[in-house]
């Protein structure tokens, strides 16, 4: 199939950036979206043009590196699918496809489609962990965890930290990302001692990093490639209120 892509090109963080169009001819419907960009890049290189920079690594939907807005939707049109797992068969011959980077105040563009998501790490560093220095662990079976809680914690823990939720949010909020970690650790008995400080510190870090506030738009959950449910934000808010009250 033949398609046209309009791609955001930006030399570096100081460049204003612009959309540029490229024709991609004879692309296999079995190619992934990123493989289509690979094919285009091979051509650009041989033509003496600058290939399009984009983040990617595992290409199997788990590392969370790939990050592009395709036709206005973070990770593109397929539900619960990262860009690397999106295949060209979901497009048709002659399509014109827009490709843009994550856009959020907290994710400055580095080049083309590559953005800096280091602020997500900062939220984790502020409290997204259970303090358990190596060697101090009790026997694994000392604390049973109800299966229901373990399963729910697992669901929350499947977040791949790609940042699509932030890119989709009109406020550029990282609330779903933070809520997923708060829920994962807060559901485990091991996570209880730090439950209050965790939610307070992570939300503070989120604000400090320049992410916007949550106004319950729900766009985040819609684009989440792992289907992290919006209800976790409610859970976070509840934890947050409880923690605040205890502070008083």
């Amino acid at each position, binding site marked *: 199939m033949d398609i046209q892509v309009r791609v955001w090109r930006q030399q*570096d963080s100081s460049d204003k950036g612009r959309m540029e169009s490229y024709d991609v001819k004879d*692309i*296999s*419907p*079995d*190619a*992934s979206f*990123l*493989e289509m960009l*690979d094919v285009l890049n*091979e051509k*650009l290189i*041989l033509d003496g043009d*600058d*290939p399009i*920079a984009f983040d*990617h*690594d*595992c*290409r*199997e939907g*788990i*590392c*969370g*590196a790939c990050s592009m807005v395709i036709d206005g939707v973070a990770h593109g049109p397929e539900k619960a*699918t990262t860009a690397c*797992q999106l*295949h060209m068969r979901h497009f048709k011959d002659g399509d014109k496809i827009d490709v843009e980077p994550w856009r959020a105040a907290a994710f400055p563009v*580095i*080049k083309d489609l590559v953005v*800096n*998501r280091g602020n*997500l*790490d900062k939220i*984790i*560093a502020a409290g997204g*962990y*259970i303090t*358990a*220095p*190596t*060697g101090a*662990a*009790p026997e*694994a*079976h000392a*604390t*049973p965890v*109800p*299966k229901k809680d*373990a399963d729910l*914690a*697992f669901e929350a*823990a*499947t977040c791949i*930290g790609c940042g699509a939720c932030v890119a989709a949010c009109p406020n550029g909020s990282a609330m779903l990302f933070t809520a997923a970690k708060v829920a*994962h*650790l807060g559901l*485990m008995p*091991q996570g209880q001692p730090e439950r209050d400080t965790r939610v307070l510190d992570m939300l503070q870090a989120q604000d400090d990093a320049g992410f916007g506030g949550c106004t319950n738009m729900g766009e985040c959950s819609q684009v989440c490639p792992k289907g992290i449910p919006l209800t976790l934000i409610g859970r976070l808010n509840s934890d947050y209120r409880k923690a605040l009250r205890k502070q008083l």
Partner: protein
Amino acid sequence: MADFWNDGDPIADTAAPEGPIENRWEKRKFSAKLVNPANRRKLTVIVVGTGLAGGSAAATLAEAGYHVKSYCYQDSPRRAHSIAAQGGINAAKNYRNDGDSIYRLFYDTVKGGDFRARESNVYRLATVSVNIIDQCVAQGVPFAREYGGLLDNRSFGGTQVSRTFYARGQTGQQLLLGAYQAMERQIGLGNIEMNSRHEMLELIIVEGKARGIVVRDMVTGEITTEMADAVVLASGGYGNVFFLSTNAKGCNVTASWRAHRKGALFANPCYTQIHPTCIPESGTHQSKLTLMSESLRNDGRVWVPKSASDCQKPASDIPEEDRDYYLERIYPSFGNLVPRDIASRAAKNVCDEGRGVGPGGLGVYLDFADAIKRLGKKAVEAKYGNLFEMYQRITGEDPYSVPMRIYPAVHYTMGGLWVDYDLQSTIPGLFVVGEANFSDHGANRLGASALMQGLGDGYFVLPTTLGNYLASGPYEKIGADHEEVVAARKQVEDRIAKLLSINGDRTVDSFHRELGHIMWEYCGMERTEEGLTKAIGLIRSLKEEFWQRVKVPGTGEQLNQNLEKAGRVADFFELGELMCIDALHRRESCGGHFRAESQTPDGEALRHDDEFSYVAAWEYATGESAKPTLHKEQLEFEYVHPSTRSYK
């Protein structure tokens, strides 16, 4: 044949204590020198890579009080490729009361490695396996649990005990996030200086000791020299030498290879693991391969058409009598459940005969029609639903109605930098952990053992043995103007300048694909003296062409993904050649590889313990035409005596 290498002096692991195997690690822990807690913050350790091994090591060393500088090429330490491991992690907990023990895990691992791993190392790995699970549970890793709230286990990779802990099909992800969160905590506390999007491009050795690395900031292109009292490589495996593999696109050998070029021996480079159940290539655009859990073989039946002329027909048009269920035919007792290497080789053989199916004839069917008839679609869906969904997402085909197509793909590399029992390479102060070292899996890794080794090395082994080395420090401060530092930096700058200056007419990827094709054809599952000799010639001339015709666009002072790739591919050429030489010299079939000249009368793998029961540790050949030198580390089997596998 010996024209390709020189024979050198034998090498020995002098760090392993003697005595009863169950006491050796205790003994080593006690004999290891300790560093006074107050002195630890004066000691700096560089850790390259943030996967299970590097992440767990960095977090643990920082907790212990050392100053840690961590580097990864990804934009976040959480994205290291350990994240993609699906199956699980072994531990000798014996929670199922099914007769498991540390000794049994040790035994299974030595045997699974086809008697090419060190007993001392493997026993230690089995010992720490139980601590790993405790540690991960304490961190909040959401392992699968039973209704009673206790941890669930399953049998994995053909073992007879259920010792595999798992978190759905995302065990690697959950374990890595545990290590990553422990790391982030230390980053937040200021104990780890994290450098994402930084690539190690050279090792700095001063007075015979590893003292630092040269790194490139992948965003600005800035080259800096980073100094430390010790350097830890946790930079993963080298499966991407094959271009197509299940590794992430960025996985590379550069950190290890730079250390090898500076004197670290590289052990058993030809030991690679090829996984039988991957989704086949769909065309020339293919950039990587995706693994599906081999549990699929529990219910799927593998077949190809009996006649090559049927290969283009839809599977449904091929009647039962024209199908060749070749695994069931050749291995009647194990059938579709033969080990990974046998299933992989058999698939390649039928495809080489022209009986493969799908694009390019590079695939075999994995058919669930019988299972669906026997168990019902619902039961099959309950068992394999997520895998079927993944398959359909990638191929656009519905495996409930048409058989899956599968093909083997490179998945893991057992070889790596040679380390002693302390995980120290032949360069003092350079430690190597996880997939980057060669130590525990012999010639073949068992399922669910990679995660165990990565975390075992990082959480429990390295912090003890590295402390022993650091106890002799702090070492003299080295300035950026030291001649060795200046020289290492210049090497990096010169190489980048050279890559950028060629400005030829072929892309980096086109060379990488061609190299991968050579490796797959001649240094994959089945090797011959003739093929390997040919491959060495092909690689050498391709390497030469690379340095004349490669086109790397852009400059070194910016984010330049092609420049990154070019440097990695340049190292893959040299590694590929060494892999072929290693494979050539090992005239036996062993572990995951079949050497065509070494087989039993009925075509099965034939090991030669009398001749090849050693670790092949290669010394880098300096100068363009020089030959690598082979150092042999003889393997002793005091506890698990070599035996032969049979699956017929």
